[in-house]
């Protein structure tokens, strides 16, 4: 193996099995369920994930992490590790060549601990060795003398008069407006006259809710390969969600100009927000530059639980009022998010939680407040649903309680208050595209219910596989009660609050071997969502070609922004379309110059590219692309932006903060073994508006995946942090459970396509909405089965049995 295993581009000839065009004129264009261009490599085992990379002469990097949640480092002695045969380098904070901190929103995170560790698992030292086990064992020989410090674990300990200030001397942009230095960011939202509205209410319901810390649990652990270059720079092959954001943070740490840090996306084994922050990127580069050898770092699952941020755990207090006729009067809430030791994307999560705290409902008066704390718990940041998940769990529980108090059907009550196009959010922003909230609820409710007692087989015996407890054979139906629950949610699409959320695409059109070929080059991180499939479809639709080649994502092209916030099809898809339009214009210019005098249609008709030819919109062929291009290639790189947004006012929360909204509703059917507290989700149906499904198969796949992660949060997923020591208790797949195929029910999906006139092709970002309403729907169903209030997720057996 003399050549390194590194990522290569993807040819996307239209794969076999693709049906004829349903709509539009380009086979394999938008609206079709074309197959993934990377599918074949992924099923043969040849697709190169970050952890599969290999280079001649490469070393293995390993990270030594803190065993304490908060401690002063008195001394670090690396001599034992350095003396270990096979070890090539050991690095601590003292060895860092340039910037010593980094961060997604602001740089508060040490590259390696700087005299203090602030969470269990914080990186302290790095080792490079010729075998991964050698590196691990050498790291154990690093002697670190810790002086444990008192830990901050929740709001009370963070804001206590004698609370340790975790980041003294803050200079970030939020420091000036927060009420306490252990608050990362606080965002109020005030809308309407809350006192007057409260006075109108016939019923008022208050509740306290709690959401546990969820992990993204992407299956491909953090990994990458850093290769030192002759020019003193470094080439990094990496699994990430945003190459250019990594680059912006890594280059200062290495003390290199950005052009000397060349990044290429490797295969990414899932992300779900957990790869927004740096993990081993800077570490591997530092080791490679120190040793002059390629360095590969791969976290194992244990380390992965410490190596990325998690979903913010939250405590939420809500008050809602309604009139006797079932109309909401007001909502007041306070959402406290635990941001853990470092800021990560906590400020943006706070903005989402506050601005979406009222849910997809019309409420005259709102008084909301969201804040994120600095604590010594694990750092929390982005995960699918991003601040909207926590709020949705609480406001949907409130909707059910209000409906019960008013003796109304919970779906009917929601529909009476559902927002629709033209509604005004508590931030003052008008929802100016379809918002079919009531219709989504109607659709999930109208689906046929799964038959009762499906475990009963013809012979009168019970198929335990269809019962709670499954093959553990804990019941044959005794004590099993069915419940049905509903929920609906609202998620923003794209980066909000004034962020310059652009993307870049380079598109080239040329004739190769007599055939027109389009090449699409973006820096979009394909993490499994199928952006690569969609890019090829857009190029086919816009340029009328069959063959599209996708270049590997790297930093040789401009930023694509993050694969986050349900934004890539909208924004990088928009950029690809925009670049294709420019290519088409250039092709038509060339055609007019060469053939314009031969046919008046060149000047007068609406021209399109179709089937490798320039045609009129009436279908008359004017010229083949080969003749128009005459060996020339048309090649453009362009940025594209969606409508701008603006920050929320720091006092009132007013502002045009969001780009677009995405709505989904769920109906959950559960069966609960009420004696043992075991839950089986029997069916979890979803209806979601996607604006326009560019690839229906992938859209449904996104809805399935989000739904299942919501199910996991409802009944099993939580990183358990010891409330006294702030240490993580369950960093493994043995103890942190994610849904298996036995835990996951049938997931019927009803896709609506109500176009958003502001978005490319009318599309709506689809990745996250289904993650929101899934959790509260499942918990509502468990409440319906058991009659228990259940104010905390995940729901555990002991919450159901009271034992």
């Amino acid at each position, binding site marked *: 193996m003399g050549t390194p295993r590194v990522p290569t581009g993807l040819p996307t000839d239209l794969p076999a099995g693709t049906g004829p065009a349903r709509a539009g004129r380009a086979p394999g264009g938008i609206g079709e369920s074309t197959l993934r261009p990377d599918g074949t490599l992924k099923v043969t085992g040849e697709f190169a994930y970050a952890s599969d990379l290999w280079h001649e002469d490469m070393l293995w990097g390993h990270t030594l992490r803190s065993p304490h949640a908060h401690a002063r480092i008195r001394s670090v002695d690396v001599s034992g590790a350095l003396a270990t045969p096979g070890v090539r380098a050991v690095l601590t904070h003292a060895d860092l060549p340039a910037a010593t901190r980094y961060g997604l929103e602001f740089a508060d995170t040490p590259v390696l601990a700087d005299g203090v560790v602030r969470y269990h698992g914080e990186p302290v030292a790095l080792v490079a060795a010729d075998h991964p086990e050698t590196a691990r064992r050498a790291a154990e020989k690093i002697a670190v003398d810790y002086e444990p410090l008192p830990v901050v674990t929740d709001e009370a300990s963070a804001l206590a008069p004698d609370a340790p200030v975790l980041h003294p001397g803050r200079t970030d942009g939020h420091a000036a407006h927060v009420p306490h230095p252990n608050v990362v960011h606080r965002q109020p939202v005030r809308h309407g006259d809350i006192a007057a509205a409260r006075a109108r209410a016939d019923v008022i319901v208050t509740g306290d809710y709690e959401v546990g810390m969820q992990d993204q649990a992407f299956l491909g652990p953090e990994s990458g390969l850093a290769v030192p270059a002759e020019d003193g720079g470094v080439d990094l092959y990496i699994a990430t969600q945003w190459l250019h954001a990594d680059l912006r943070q890594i280059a200062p740490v290495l003390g290199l100009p950005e052009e000397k840090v060349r990044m290429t996306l490797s295969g990414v*084994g899932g992300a779900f927000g957990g790869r927004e922050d740096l993990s081993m990127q800077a570490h591997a580069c530092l080791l490679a530059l120190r040793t002059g050898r390629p360095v590969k770092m791969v976290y194992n699952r244990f380390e992965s639980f410490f190596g990325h941020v998690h979903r913010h755990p939250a405590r939420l207090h809500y008050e809602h009022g309604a009139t006797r006729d079932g109309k909401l009067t007001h909502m007041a809430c306070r959402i406290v998010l635990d941001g853990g030791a470092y800021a990560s994307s906590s400020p943006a999560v706070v903005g989402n939680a506050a601005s979406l705290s009222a849910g997809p409902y019309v409420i005259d008066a709102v008084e909301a407040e969201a804040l994120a704390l600095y604590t010594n718990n694990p750092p929390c940041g982005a995960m699918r649903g991003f601040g909207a998940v926590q709020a949705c769990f609480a406001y949907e529980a409130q909707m059910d309680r209000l409906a019960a108090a008013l003796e109304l059907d919970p779906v009917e009550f929601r529909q009476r208050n559902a927002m629709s196009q033209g509604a005004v959010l508590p931030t003052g922003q008008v929802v100016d595209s379809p918002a079919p909230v009531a219709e989504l609820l109607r659709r999930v409710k109208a689906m046929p219910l799964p038959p009762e007692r499906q475990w009963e087989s013809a012979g009168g015996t019970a198929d335990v596989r269809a019962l709670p407890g499954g093959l553990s054979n804990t019941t044959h139906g005794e004590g099993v009660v069915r419940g049905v629950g509903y929920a609906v949610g609202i998620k923003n699409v794209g980066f909000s609050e004034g962020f310059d959320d652009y993307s870049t695409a380079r598109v080239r059109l040329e004739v190769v071997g007599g055939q027109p070929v389009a090449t699409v080059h973006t820096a979009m991180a394909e993490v499994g969502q199928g952006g690569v499939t969609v890019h090829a479809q857009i190029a086919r639709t816009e340029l009328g070609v069959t063959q599209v080649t996708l270049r590997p994502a790297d930093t040789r092209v401009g930023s694509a922004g993050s694969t986050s916030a349900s934004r890539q099809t909208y924004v990088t898809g928009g950029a690809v379309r925009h670049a294709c339009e420019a290519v088409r214009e250039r092709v038509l210019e060339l055609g007019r110059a060469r053939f314009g005098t031969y046919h008046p249609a060149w000047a007068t008709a609406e021209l399109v590219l179709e089937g490798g030819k320039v045609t009129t919109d009436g279908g008359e062929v004017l010229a083949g692309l080969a003749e128009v291009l005459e060996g020339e290639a048309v090649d453009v790189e362009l940025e594209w932006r969606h409508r701008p947004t603006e920050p929320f006012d720091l006092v009132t929360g007013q502002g045009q903060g969001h780009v677009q909204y995405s709505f989904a509703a769920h109906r959950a059917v559960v069966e609960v073994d009420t004696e043992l507290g075991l839950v089986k989700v029997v069916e979890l149906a979803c209806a979601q508006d996607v604006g326009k499904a560019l690839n229906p198969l992938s859209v449904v796949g996104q809805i399935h995946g989000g739904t299942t992660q919501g199910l996991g949060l409802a009944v099993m997923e939580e990183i358990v942090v010891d409330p006294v020591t702030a240490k993580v208790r369950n960093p493994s797949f043995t103890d942190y459970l994610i849904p298996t195929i036995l835990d996951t029910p049938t997931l019927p999906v009803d896709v609506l396509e109500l176009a958003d006139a502001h978005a490319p092709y009318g599309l709506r970002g689809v990745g996250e909405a289904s993650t929101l309403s899934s959790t509260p729907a499942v918990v509502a169903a468990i409440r319906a089965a058991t009659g228990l209030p259940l104010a905390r997720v995940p729901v555990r057996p002991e919450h159901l049995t009271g034992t």
Partner: protein
Amino acid sequence: MRVNVTVNGRLREADDVWEGESLLYVLRERLGLPGSKNACEQGECGSCTVRLDGELVCACLVAAGQAEGREVVTVEGLAELAARRAGGSAPAGEERGEEGPPGAGLSPVQRAFVDAGAVQCGFCTPGLLVAADDLLARVPDPSDADIREALSGNLCRCTGYEKILDAVRLAAARAGETV
């Protein structure tokens, strides 16, 4: 130590193997077969599922030395295994040959995973394919409960398993059509 193991029908030799290395490490790092994935190293996720003398195992839980003299089939050998099972003929006629275009050389279950949309990030896919191939070899027309039981040792974080069920159903249906 040296480990001799037959992988995907070929006798392979791995030298300088440290006794603590797993079969998964030897496959991935010493034999150039990174198709089997390491996602938990605890036997919980099934991403490293291979056949060892015909039995499904998590390669992360098998010490490399335990594989001495035995036969391993990984995702990289699934197409060939399917062809052998089908009586030595190439799978699905033209779909064979290492030099072929993308899509060539897929076993029926691999083809079905691509067609059904069962692949998103794909990290769980190799293990699921080896497990699904084993199920279909044992039970040509599995019920949904059979499929769920057979794949319950394989975690997937992207798909919610619906399209994976579709893929196994599709592979079974296609096999039924050709009988």
